Every structure is written in structure tokens, then in C-alpha cells.
């Protein structure tokens, strides 16, 4: 038997965070973009406990200032891409508004620690979402293009091809075949 599941990573992380913070009896507020506001001062011991318990879920407590900011940028981009309603004006304006830093600053910090630019990351992220939609929904390319604020299907296809080296349809084809392979392997 194969179970097909769909999950929301964002929600999952938040749920884990909540559970573990609750377990350690820490009072907190989740701000939504990869930030946990802790009201009290955490003891080193508690901090280590929390860090250990979260690690196995791939949740890391960031200590580096720059990395924290990079994560916040990524989270902000994620939020923006997932928010279907408020298609923002411009990435740079959006990021500097959300994170309260100049875009140049954000951009240089980002490139410094990720080997890529914010723009490239956004494209990669968008393509990742397209892949997600292609695999897990019945949305057509037109619908996906609309959802992710592409000006046209051609634009989407072009960007997809440029980024992944595959056309959306051949990607979908491979994923379909892969899915069909699974029961044969097991």
C-alpha cells in the first residue's frame, strides 16, 4: 500500500517548536518568520536542552548574527511566495520593509553567506514551489503561473527550463515515472 501525503513544512516546524518550548516550560511568542521571542532569560542548560531536542527535526538555533538575518530573509521570501493574496510590489521593497534593513545591506549579507543572490534564491524557491505544485496538485501550468505571479506560462516555462535544465512537462513526466517505480522497488 502507498499512502500519498501532503504536508506543510512551515506549520510542521511551528508545531514542533511549540511542543518543545512548552515541554521545557518556556514562555514565548512565535513571530512567524523563523523567530521565537523568549520572554525570560534562558539558562545555558535549558538552551542546550532545547537545541538538542530540536536538532533531530532539523531545527537549529542560530547563533550567528548574519546567518540569522539570512534565515529571516529566506523566511520572508517564503512568506511572500506563499501569500497568494498580497502580491507585493517589488522584492527589494518588500524585504527592506519587512526586515527593516536597506536592500543593499540585505543583499550583500545574503550573497556573502549563501553563494547566491537574493534574486537567484527567489527564483530557485519559486521553481521549487512550481515543482511542488506540479507533483502534488492537479493545477495546470496556467494556474500555477497565476498563483506564483508569473506574467505568462511562457515566462514560467522559460524560467523553469533555465533553472532546472528540464521543461516542466519532462520534469512532471520523470516525477510520475518515479512515483510509479516505488511500489516496484519495495
Amino acid at each position, binding site marked *: 500500500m502507498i499512502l500519498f501525503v501532503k504536508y506543510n*513544512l512551515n506549520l510542521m516546524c511551528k508545531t514542533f517548536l511549540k511542543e518543545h518550548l512548552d515541554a521545557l516550560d518556556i514562555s514565548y511568542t512565535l513571530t512567524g518568520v523563523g523567530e521565537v521571542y523568549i520572554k525570560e532569560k534562558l539558562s545555558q542548560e535549558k538552551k542546550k536542552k532545547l537545541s538538542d531536542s530540536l536538532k533531530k527535526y532539523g531545527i537549529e538555533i542560530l547563533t*550567528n548574527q*548574519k*546567518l540569522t538575518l539570512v534565515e529571516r530573509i*529566506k523566511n520572508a521570501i*517564503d512568506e511572500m511566495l506563499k501569500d497568494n493574496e498580497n502580491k507585493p510590489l517589488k522584492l527589494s521593497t518588500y524585504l527592506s520593509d519587512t526586515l527593516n534593513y536597506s536592500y543593499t545591506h540585505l543583499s550583500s549579507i545574503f550573497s556573502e*553567506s*549563501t*553563494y*547566491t543572490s537574493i534574486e*537567484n*534564491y527567489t527564483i*530557485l*524557491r519559486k521553481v*521549487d514551489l512550481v*515543482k*511542488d505544485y506540479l*507533483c502534488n496538485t492537479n493545477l495546470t501550468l496556467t494556474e500555477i503561473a497565476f498563483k506564483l505571479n508569473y506574467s505568462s506560462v511562457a515566462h514560467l516555462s522559460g524560467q523553469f527550463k533555465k*533553472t*532546472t*535544465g*528540464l521543461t516542466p512537462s519532462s*520534469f512532471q513526466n*520523470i*516525477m510520475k*515515472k*518515479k512515483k510509479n*517505480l516505488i511500489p516496484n*522497488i519495495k
Partner: protein
Amino acid sequence: MTNKLLNIVLADDDEDDRMLFKEAIDEINIRTKLSIFNHGQQLMDYLTLPNIILPNLIFLDLNMPIKNGTQCLIEIRSNPMLQDLCVAIYSTSSSERDIEETFLNGANIYVNKPTNFSKLREVVEKVLQLNWQYHTSNLNKDTFLFRI
């Protein structure tokens, strides 16, 4: 640079290719540690050693003596210890069949060996970047498929 060292592995039977690959990696502005193997069996022996630090990325040639790239790929994907490794196929073949087959066998990236050194550098850099993104961001590894 605050980023961690990237642990990269290359398995290729062609001496020239290995050399050029290393030169390309060295010219890229990403901190890496490259281990090179001459054929598939050598790679698999290394990967199944106890207590080794698993590489972040494996470049795998398809046409190799003793154990070819496809065999390695299948072994990696069926080994619970190794199955999460990122594998980039590094081959001369541009046949659609080969590409599809390796993707179906679990390859993440398919790289055609470029015919131009600067191109090679670009390609390797792009692969490293992609791999980096997939390791540091919330990207879906299930759909980690690229052809470069």
C-alpha cells in the same frame, strides 16, 4: 567566510577529467574539500567505510570500469545510510534515455561534461550552489532534479 567546508567526492575513470575537475573546483570561490576516486568500486568502498564523514555531494561519471555510475547510484539509493546523499551525474552522454534513467534511479543533478573549461567551472559552481541551497534552505529534496 563563515561557511562550513563542503565535502565533495568525484568518481571518474578519466585522468584528464579528474585533473580538470580539480582545477575547476580550485578556481571556485567556495570552500571545498575534494576526494577523488578512479572508479565506482573505489567510491563505494570508501562510502561504506565505518565512521567516515559522508560527503555533501557526489559527482559520478557513468562510464567507468569495474563498477559504473548507474550501479553506484542504485547502491547508494538502496543503502539506508547513504540514500540521502546528493548525487550529481557527471557524464559525456547527452542521450535522453540515459538522463531519464539516472533520474529514475535517484540522481539529483545531471551534468553533461562541458567542452569548455570556463563552462566547466560555471557548471561545477552552479552544482555546488544548488547543493548548498538544498542543504541550507527549506527546499523540497523530493523534487531535487536538475539538468545542467
